[in-house]
């Protein structure tokens, strides 16, 4: 694991190596000070000799200065190393996610990926700081104190042996009893937050059903549960503290008592009494620090595991290796395709034995109820997912044989969940094709019926879109997404229910401009409205993952029961709105 982490410290090696060295120097400097003090007492005060006092004093200042400088530098190195590690991990994760297939993204879910790149990395960063500084410091302190105490007076070191087991038990209780209680408290807090969140989201339902009192009862339960769990944890924790304090005090008193007797028995110089006292305190402190650091380490292991899980995931869709690609024409073929989202044993086929051919330049529509597999079908064309069985061919070549960007370069896709990115409209449109000219942008915008509203903004194409495109309406967003796909001038244009928020009249105009300006382009659309699909060259009716019927509007009205049902359900009064 450590080796693994070390590989993400690239570029920051000198900080990683520098930090512990500096911490060790700093700690050793600090450990020297009690020794110098002993010298002041033994050689100076007790012998009434000022010279060693001056010497030791000057040395102390030098050592303290050295500690100050190394301490500051250590902080700098540790910070740089930790931040560097965090940056490298984030980058590794981001780049890995960028190579994920849709199935991989689905497997993790977006929100989990975000947590793994933010909170989890921060966690690891903090832990690495603790390791580099506190853990190393504590271990150095422990070793140095033990060595020094033993060299000064091994018998006094026995005090540690008396105190340590008691402290260890207290620490153990803390870890075994209190920490699980704190986890329970956290759960109770989550529950409390859920109650509040649910109440806030559903405020209209609560008010219209006059359920405020019931909500209050539920909240009081959660609130009292949280307080009870909190008290259980905190009161145990609080009870451990005096035990620790008394252990430390007892060590002091014991050292003073036995040490005092040794001084009187001339077994030890008086000046060392304080020194040993200091070292023994440091032994106990450093053991506590090591305990805490290890605890923190084990806790952040989960974060580490979650981050590496992302980095270690092999993208399930990778480039094909065919290099002699057919000329882009826009032919799409499904040959006996079956598809399921979960590979492996579980999961049902979302698409079953689909065979379908779309000729270059055809306008093909796919209709069917929700959950019949329409989106899944078109997602197979740019190889967002891989088929489970059968073959998808674009221009005669299996999509799995294409390099991914060559394949996706032929396809313009407007997804169901339209996403625009923060940036200007122009920047967003250029996603389609970085080298598009101004004229091409304008033409695409006109074709997608987006030009007029873009120009109605004071800054036209340079209008800034907020994250998620929240400052344009749903219909405008969809038209921008269509424009973006058209800027690409793809051989195959796929629109996945992407005009649902555009009114029928505007949609009609978009359809019209497709017919006129995209003569050579294959267009595949998924739509709810019959009015959107009735002029298609071919309409495919999907039902429960199979092709139920294929034909033109008139043919399907004759032959397809499902198509007629959809048609009828939209007839009385047509659509008011989209």
């Amino acid at each position: 694991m450590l080796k693994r982490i070390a590989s993400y410290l690239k570029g920051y090696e000198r900080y990683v190596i520098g930090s512990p060295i500096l911490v060790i120097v700093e700690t050793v400097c600090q450990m020297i000070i009690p020794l110098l003090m002993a010298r002041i007492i033994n050689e100076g005060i007790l012998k009434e000799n000022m010279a060693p006092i001056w010497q030791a004093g000057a040395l102390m200042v030098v050592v303290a200065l050295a500690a100050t400088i190394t301490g500051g530098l250590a902080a700098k190195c540790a910070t740089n190393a930790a931040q560097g590690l965090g940056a490298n991990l984030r980058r590794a994760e981001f780049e890995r996610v960028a190579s994920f297939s849709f199935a991989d993204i689905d497997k993790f879910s977006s929100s989990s990926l975000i947590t793994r790149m933010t909170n989890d990395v921060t966690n690891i960063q903090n832990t690495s700081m603790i390791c580099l500084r506190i853990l190393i410091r504590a271990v150095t302190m422990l070793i140095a104190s033990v060595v020094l105490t033993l060299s000064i007076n091994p018998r006094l070191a026995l005090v540690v042996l008396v105190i340590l087991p008691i402290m260890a038990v207290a620490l153990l209780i803390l870890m075994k009893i209190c920490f699980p209680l704190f986890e329970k408290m956290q759960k109770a807090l989550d529950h409390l937050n859920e109650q509040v969140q649910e109440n806030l989201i559903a405020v209209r339902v609560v008010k219209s059903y006059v359920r405020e009192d019931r909500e209050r009862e539920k909240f009081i339960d959660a609130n009292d549960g949280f307080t009870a769990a909190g008290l259980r944890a905190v009161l145990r924790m609080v009870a451990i503290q005096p035990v620790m304090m008394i252990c430390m005090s007892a060590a002091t008193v014991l050292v003073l008592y036995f040490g005092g007797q040794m001084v009187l028995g001339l077994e030890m110089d008086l000046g060392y009494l304080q020194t040993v006292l200091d070292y023994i305190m440091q032994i106990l402190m450093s053991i506590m620090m090591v305990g805490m650091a290890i605890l923190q380490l084990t806790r952040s292991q989960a974060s580490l595991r979650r981050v590496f899980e992302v980095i270690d995931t092999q993208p399930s869709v990778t480039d094909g290796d065919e290099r002699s690609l057919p000329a882009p024409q826009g032919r799409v073929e499904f040959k006996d395709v079956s598809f399921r989202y979960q590979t492996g044993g579980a999961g049902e086929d979302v698409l079953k034995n689909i065979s379908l051919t779309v000729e270059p330049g055809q306008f093909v529509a796919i209709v069917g109820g929700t959950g019949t597999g329409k989106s899944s079908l078109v997602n197979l064309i740019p190889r967002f997912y891989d088929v489970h069985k059968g073959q998808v061919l674009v221009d005669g070549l299996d999509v799995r044989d294409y390099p991914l960007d060559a394949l996706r370069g032929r396809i313009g896709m407007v997804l169901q969940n339209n996403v625009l990115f923060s940036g200007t409209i122009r920047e967003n449109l250029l996603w389609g094709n970085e080298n598009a000219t101004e004229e091409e942008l304008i033409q695409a915008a006109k074709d997608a019926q987006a030009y007029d509203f873009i120009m109605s903004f004071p800054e036209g194409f340079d209008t800034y879109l907020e994250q998620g495109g929240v400052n344009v309406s749903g219909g405008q967003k969809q038209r921008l997404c269509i424009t973006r796909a058209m800027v690409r001038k793809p051989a195959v244009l796929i629109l996945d229910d992407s005009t649902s928020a555009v009114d029928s009249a505007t949609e009609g105009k978009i359809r019209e401009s497709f017919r006129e300006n995209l003569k050579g382009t294959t267009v595949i659309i998924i739509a709810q409205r019959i009015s959107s699909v009735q002029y298609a060259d071919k309409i495919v009716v999907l039902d429960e993952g199979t092709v139920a019927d294929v034909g033109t509007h008139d043919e399907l009205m004759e032959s397809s029961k499902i198509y007629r049902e959809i048609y009828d359900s939209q007839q009385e009064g047509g659509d008011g709105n989209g």
Partner: protein
Amino acid sequence: MAEHKGPHGPGGPHGGPRGGYGKPKDLRRTMLRTVKYIANRPVLLIAALVSVVASALLGVAATYLQKPIIDGITSAWAAGQAQWPELAACCLRLMAAYVLASVCSYVQSNLMAQLAQKGCNRMRKELFDKLQELPLSYFDAHTHGELMSRFTNDADNVQMALEQSVVQLISSAVTFVGVVAMMITLSPLLFLASVVMLGAVMAVFTVFGKRSRRYFSKQQAALGAVNGNIQEMIEGMKVVKAFNHEEQAKARFQALNEEYRSAASQAGFYSSAIMPVASNLTYIGYAVTAVLGAALAMSAGVNVGFTLGSLVTYLKYNQQVTQPINQISMQMNSLLSAMAGAERIFAVMDTDPEVDRGQVTLVPVEKDANGSLSKFSGQGRPKSWAWKVPRNCGLILAPVLVGADEAIAELGQADEENGALKLLPPGVESKTGLWVRIGPDGALTPVTAGEMASHRWAWKYPGPDGAMGYHLIRGAVRNVPGEEFCYTELRGAVRLSHVDFSYVEGKPVLKDMSVYADPGQKIAFVGSTGAGKTTVTNLINRFYEIQGGLITCDGIDVRDIEKDSLRLSQGAVLQDTHLFTGTVMDNIRYGRLDATDEECVSAAKTANADGFIRRLPEGYQTMLTGDGANLSQGQRQLLSIARAAVKDPPIMVLDEATSSIDTRTERHIQQGMDALMEGRTVFVIAHRLSTVRNADCIVVIEHGEIMEKGSHAQLMEEQGRYYQLYTGQFELD
């Protein structure tokens, strides 16, 4: 976007970043008010405070108790004694001080934990109670995240501050004063040296602290940018891939990532270097003090009292004295940010609750065959409900005659005096039993017994313009003289007359809107997004207060009806369905808590939901979590229809209930909706005109005003906007 999202769009006045850890505006007031939450058990609080002070003082004293031990050993050693008999006693004394300090510290922590936890429990409860009372406009103006953080960050910070910061501050202050006092006692001269050292440490704190804060805000901004980019890109990763945009995305991310790393490294340096630098600097002070002290201890002649024990003790204090300063500056920060949080919590608590001056309540009644109302027997489920109106609440129940065109004329009893008719005040019986019709000009005309037999009742009260208005009652009336209340049957007649409304002052949403719905009628609203359709339905149940005009329910001004009662008389199926954590059965029963299982199942059948529920893994006992995330949109909608069905109210609002469902599925749901609408007054806002066709009245709204209204046939004949919409000549947007 649905209208109920409120007046502020994203990025509006409340869309920006929330003031996170600012300083409280009025520290003293907030502090006092916060302390009240732990001051309800004053004995415990005082005990805790006494323990804090005692524990701090004992800590200072314990260090001092080491002095006689060192001095005793030194003098015994100097005298060449192999034993110092008082050693054990001195050590025991020292131990006793330590133990006592620990005990005090335990008592204090224990008490404060209890007080703080219970106090914050109370604070959260009061906050939640308040949230239940706040009007919807408050929730429009404040995001969920913002209100959530009152419970999470703010309440947590207050709890931590009460549990630790307050005590730590007191303890540190006492320790600091105690240590300084002891240092001065031990040696004023050495103390001067220490002051110089303290000054240097303080300077480090200030300089590094300032730098750290400056870089920290830079770091936060960079962090915000990185996290924002992560969120945006991960959520949009599918689009990134569709456009082969991975490389650009990586480059942009890496730039932000690097910017954050460098900002965080700088900020991190100052915050993490502050401790080692400051504490190592104290060692320089330690060295200076040690040398000076050693000289002092040796020149015993000049300074008789300063022994080796004094020096050792002094050096210990010298190391201790920076700790309380550090503690105070740390705890002060967390206390201030906690108080800023407390202030935000109090701001919520101090918000005015929903206005409710209504005195009219909804009660179950029995209605016999003659249509007269009597008290509900309390057996089984009531079939009829009535508005219970106190006689002194400003509403006057007046007998009226209804003429042609629904013209209303009030009736009164009169006596003949000197050949003229004299109107008697209401409630006073005429000697002759004479009833008269009161003309608009006050003229009295006697009415015949035949006319009297067909008299009706109306509510009489002044409208918003001050003029007296009559509102005909359509159901049964119980008006027994001498009874404190009168009762009128709940029928579900809803009238909006000349209603003006705006969410934000100066931006009218509805203008002079008048819509009448008789019991059992279906009223449909059609119009563009933002035209004000949802707003209308939000006014009927008084989610918002109107600025002008009048809304009545069964003739009663809705503002005179107690809110809970008004809302119990209405049901709603909204576009956004919200389900609660619990079983399917629990969620249906949410509509009416005393509904039996059978009633819930039959409501589910009405809503056409029974079929899919039975196919769920555990049928009606299936647990729903996360707002019903394990159900499809259509299934959630069916459940919310079932929930409304079990409530069984006379008035029902259906707001775009099927807009996100495909047309074939909608048909399935439509059957449930049709069953739900039967026999009720229904307000329906529909996405598809097919669903509104059979409404009794279709109201076309644009820009908050009624463009046209009438039945489907009428509107088609008029060939106006509705006709254009229906025939597809005009589109809404």
